[in-house]
């Protein structure tokens, strides 16, 4: 069990030990870094490839379809076929596009998504880089995708792209704020910005100490997840690429592998966001019986399933409502949430449950009442004989 749990760590150690027998120490250090990078560089794209398949399969099933099943058993080779197709497609650069930013954008957008992998604790002792400001790093890095998106939209010289880019910038700025604020209670309680420490803070009680099982944690989790969905531009917050309105938004003018890179970034983002949500609120890699890394992937994929589920069910929000939701609803709620977490920290026993839960429920109810525009109107329909 212990070996299975630590299989990746041990194999890496084995390789390094083997290299250490005949190579100087600085080469071994380099190799150590290289192996980690390699692992991420393989994990990222492969995750993305199979996430596309998973998305198509799951949405297909939700729509009573089969989904891709022609390439390989159950369509398992479909991502490869798609990859080949993407690579062999003609690369179209619009006449009059800003060549530099049009070319650089798809490359730049992948970098932050890959960087974000660095602080995700994949298992016990499996955090690629155990930064002491891990969460901060993640948030900082993941928000830079906006720049790439804006480059793509501006460089394409397409009006639909520009609209998409503008929407993306606005959306990112709005959703970054509640996202950060929803992480604050976790940091407050765990007392650390390191992702590994946060996971360790949720240990014990067979999973009941996960932060999601506290009132403030529950609200923070929902808000964090929603903002995460918005940050990866996924439905129902997929306005920057809103297909039915602005064709494909910022990647209207991209084809072939460049387009695939945007897709890759989107899927890797959704993986890292789900991973971080699992880390912060669902106890990370903690769990009984199964190896720690398996637990992590189970939780992450469950969250990704929810994202796909959203996409299969929900229509898209309009741009002004999107902003309104962030500023008028999520933002006050996160602020109240921080207060609740503070009270949680200073109180004990049943009282703290009662206080925090009532504060949060009350503010939720109040905010629903205040944002009357977001609650459905009751309609009466008459019938003429």
């Amino acid at each position, binding site marked *: 069990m212990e070996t299975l749990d630590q299989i990746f760590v041990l194999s890496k150690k084995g390789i390094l030990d083997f290299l250490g027998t005949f190579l100087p120490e600085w080469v071994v250090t380099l190799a150590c870094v290289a192996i980690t990078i390699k692992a991420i560089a393989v994990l990222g794209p492969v995750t993305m490839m199979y996430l596309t398949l998973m998305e198509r399969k*799951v949405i297909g*099933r*939700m*729509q*009573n*379809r*089969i989904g891709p*099943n022609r390439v390989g058993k159950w369509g398992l080779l479909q991502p490869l076929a798609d990859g080949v197709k993407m690579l062999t497609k003609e690369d179209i650069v619009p006449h009059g596009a800003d060549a530099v930013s049009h070319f650089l954008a798809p490359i730049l957008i992948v970098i932050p998504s890959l960087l974000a992998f660095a602080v995700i604790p994949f298992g016990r002792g499996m955090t690629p880089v155990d930064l002491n400001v891990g969460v901060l790093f993640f948030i900082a890095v993941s928000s830079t995708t906006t720049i790439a998106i804006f480059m793509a939209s501006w460089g394409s010289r397409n009006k639909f792209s520009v609209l998409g880019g503008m929407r993306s910038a606005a959306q990112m700025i709005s959703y970054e704020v509640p996202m950060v604020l929803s992480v604050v209670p976790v940091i407050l309680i765990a007392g650390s910005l390191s992702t590994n420490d946060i996971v360790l803070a949720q240990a014990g009680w067979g999973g009941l100490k996960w932060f999601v099982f506290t009132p403030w944690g529950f609200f923070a989790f929902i808000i964090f997840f929603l903002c995460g969905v918005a940050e990866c531009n996924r439905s129902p917050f997929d306005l920057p690429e809103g297909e039915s309105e602005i064709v494909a938004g910022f990647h209207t003018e991209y084809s072939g592998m460049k387009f695939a890179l945007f897709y890759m970034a989107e899927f890797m983002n959704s993986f890292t966001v789900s991973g971080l949500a699992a880390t912060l609120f669902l106890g990370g890699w903690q769990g009984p019986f199964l190896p720690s890394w398996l637990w992590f992937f189970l939780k992450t994929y469950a969250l990704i399933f929810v994202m796909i*589920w*959203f996409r*299969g*069910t*929900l229509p898209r929000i309009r741009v002004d409502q999107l902003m309104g939701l962030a500023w008028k609803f999520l933002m006050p709620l996160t602020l109240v949430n921080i207060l609740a977490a503070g009270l949680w920290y200073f109180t004990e026993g049943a009282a703290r449950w009662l206080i925090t839960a009532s504060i949060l429920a009350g503010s*939720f109810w109040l905010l*629903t009442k205040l944002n009357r525009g*977001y*609650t*459905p109107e009751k309609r009466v329909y008459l019938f003429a004989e």
Partner: protein
Amino acid sequence: MIFGTGILQGLMVTLKNFVTSYFKAPDEGGIFTVEYPEKRLPEKERFRNFPFLLYDKNPENLRCVACDICAKECPPKCIYIVREFDKDGKPLKRPAVFDIDFTVCMNCGICEEACPFDAIYMDHEFEIASADRHAKLLYHRDDLLKSNEYFHKIRPTDASAIDARRREAEEKKKAAEAAALAAQKAKEAAAAQAKPPEPPKPAAGA
């Protein structure tokens, strides 16, 4: 009402369909897809696609008499007929050329309705895609010919009704012909009775 309940209900619907898609019948939330080339839906008898020409027993014996009615009635004018002539230039009751341009045909079935000779019917064959629309989708007389047995196979009810009607018509025609013949004979006989038979001519050179 709490904000989000409607969304949650909607999510439950899709989740239910996700789950039922694994074990329920197509009608009750199961997978509705028919994996086409391997599986096919049963063909409906009245299904119509492109027209074909019918022949009885052998391809020489086709029912079409080149009357040109279908070509005139065809709304998009996709039928082109040239009558066959024999060596003396006498028109024959069959087409020398009978072309249907399937790229123009709109599967309305008016040719079938208008044909007075039960010669043209709508086919069930729909997999006629080809890379060359000019050469492959312009169907000539011999491509269009199909046997009555084939017609019975694809549209049993209609085919038997039509066959019965044709048989009846033929019998009636035969009966009418026989009656006409009998009437002719009777007339001749009556005429013969009215006029006493002429005495036989003397044999020439007797």
